[in-house]
C-alpha cells in the first residue's frame, strides 16, 4: 500500500504542477459552461431547445471535463514509458498493481474536485438565470459519474501504454471529440435518430451524459439502464487496460 501511495502522490504532484491541466481540466469546461449559457440565451424560446439550459448543460459539461483527465493520464503514462523513469521503477519491488492503482487514484481525486467546481459554477449560473438546479442531484451525480471517471482514466492508461508521448495526445484528442460529439453534449441524440443514434447508443459516452443529466434532475425512470451500461463499460475498459499494461510491462522486461 505504501508503494501505491508513494506513486499516487508523485502522479498527483505531476498533474497539479502541469499548468496545461488547469487550463484544460478546469478552465476549458468552465468557459464552455458560460459560452453555452450565452448561446442558450440567444436561442428563441419558440425553438423549444433546452439542451444548453444549465440544468441540462451541467451534467454534459461534467462529462466533457472528465475527457481531459484521460488526456493527462495518457500523457503521464506515455512520458513515464518513453523516458527511463518506469524502467528505474521496474527494478524496484513495485508490482504492476502498484503502478495501475498509482495512476488511477490521484486522477479519481482530481475528477471529484473537477466535478465539484463545475457544479458550483453551474449552481451560480442557475441562480443568476432563475433556473431550478438542486444541490442534492448534483452531489449524487458525483457518485453516479464514478464509473464514467473510471472509463476515461482507463482509456488514458490504455492509450498511454500503447502509444508514445508524441502519438498519445492525438489519439486522445480524437476520443475527446468523439465523446463530446457522440455523447450528446452539444445536440440531442434522441432528436436525431437513425444510424447516428445507433452509433451513439453503442458507445458509452451518451450513457454517461444521460446518467449525469438524469441524476442532476433526480429522475430515475430510465436512469438505471444508462448507469448500468456505464458500469459495464468501466469494468470492461479497466480490465482491458490492466491486461494491456501488464503485458507491455512483461514485454519491456522480456
Amino acid at each position, binding site marked *: 500500500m505504501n*508503494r501505491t501511495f508513494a*506513486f499516487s502522490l*508523485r502522479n498527483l504532484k505531476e498533474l497539479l*504542477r502541469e499548468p496545461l491541466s488547469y487550463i484544460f481540466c478546469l478552465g476549458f469546461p468552465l468557459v464552455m459552461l458560460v459560452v453555452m449559457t450565452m448561446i442558450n440565451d440567444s436561442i428563441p424560446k419558440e425553438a423549444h431547445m433546452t439542451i444548453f439550459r444549465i440544468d441540462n448543460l451541467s451534467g454534459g459539461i461534467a462529462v466533457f471535463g472528465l475527457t481531459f483527465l484521460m488526456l493527462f493520464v495518457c500523457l503521464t503514462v506515455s512520458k513515464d514509458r518513453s*523516458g*527511463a*523513469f518506469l524502467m528505474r521503477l521496474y527494478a524496484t*519491488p513495485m508490482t504492476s498493481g502498484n503502478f495501475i492503482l498509482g495512476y488511477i487514484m490521484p486522477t479519481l481525486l482530481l475528477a471529484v474536485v473537477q466535478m465539484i467546481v463545475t457544479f458550483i459554477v453551474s449552481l451560480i449560473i442557475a441562480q443568476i438565470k432563475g433556473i431550478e438546479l438542486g444541490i442534492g442531484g448534483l452531489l449524487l451525480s458525483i457518485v453516479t459519474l464514478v464509473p464514467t471517471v473510471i472509463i476515461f482514466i482507463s482509456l488514458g492508461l490504455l492509450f498511454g501504454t500503447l502509444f508514445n508521448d508524441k502519438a498519445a495526445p492525438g489519439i486522445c484528442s480524437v476520443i475527446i471529440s468523439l465523446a463530446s460529439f457522440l455523447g450528446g453534449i452539444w445536440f440531442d441524440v434522441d432528436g436525431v435518430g437513425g444510424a447516428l443514434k445507433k452509433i451513439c447508443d453503442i458507445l458509452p459516452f451518451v450513457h454517461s451524459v444521460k446518467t449525469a443529466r438524469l441524476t442532476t434532475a433526480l429522475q430515475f425512470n430510465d436512469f438505471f439502464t444508462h448507469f448500468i451500461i456505464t458500469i459495464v463499460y468501466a469494468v470492461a475498459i479497466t480490465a482491458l487496460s490492466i491486461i494491456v499494461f501488464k503485458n507491455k510491462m512483461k514485454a519491456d522486461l522480456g
Partner: protein
Amino acid sequence: MFAVETKKLIKKYKEKTAVNGINLSINSGEIYALLGVNGAGKTTTIRMLTCLSTPTDGECFVYGKNCRLQADEVKKIVGISPQDTAVAENLTVYENLEFVCGIYGYSNEKTKEFCGRMIKLFSLEEYKKSRAKTLSGGWKRKLSIAMALIGQPKVLFLDEPTLGLDVLARRELWGVIEKLKGETTIVLTTHYMEEAEQLSDRIGIMIDGELKAEGTLQELEKLFVRIAEKEGKR
C-alpha cells in the same frame, strides 16, 4: 560468494545476439567497469542483472540470488541509475528522494534521515527545493544516482553515468562515485577508457556481446603490450 556472477550469459533479440556467453565474477565492495563501444552489450548485461530483461540462456546471480528465478529477492538488493536520467521532472530534488523512500516503505524518520544523508553525500543542499527539470545534466545524474542508493543496494549499477556531461561535471561525478567505494559494490558501464581507469578496481572489455578481456588496469596494460609485440613480430 561473489557479489555478481554470470555463467555463460546469453541474450538474443530475434537474429541479433546482444550478449554472447559472458562469464563475470565480481567481488563484494569492488568497482567493476564494463568498457565497450555502443552496441557492445554492456547495457543489456546490466538489464539482465537488474531483472529488467530475461536471459535467453545461461544464468546470472546477485549475491547468490538467481536473477531469473528470484527476481523479487534480487530487486531488493540492487539499485540502478539508467543511461537516460530517470527522475520525476516536476518533483523537487527532495521530493524525488522522498518518493523513492516511499517505494521502499520507509517510515517518516527513516525518510528524513536517508534524504538528508543523500543530499549531504551528493552536495544537493542548494538544489533540494528545485524541480528536477530545472537541473543541469550533471546535477540530474547526481540525483539519479542518489535515488538509486536510497534502497541501500548491495550492488549499484551505473549505466554510462557520465555520458553527455562536460569535463568538469564528469570529474565531479567521479569524485562522488569514488566516495561510494567500499560501501557498496558498483558495476558501471562506460565507453571512456579514462573513466574506467580512474574509477574501477577491475575492467571488463566487451566487444560484440563478448567479454574479450578482463583484469586490473595493470593486467590489461601487460596484455595489450603482449598483443602489440606479437603483432609487431608478424
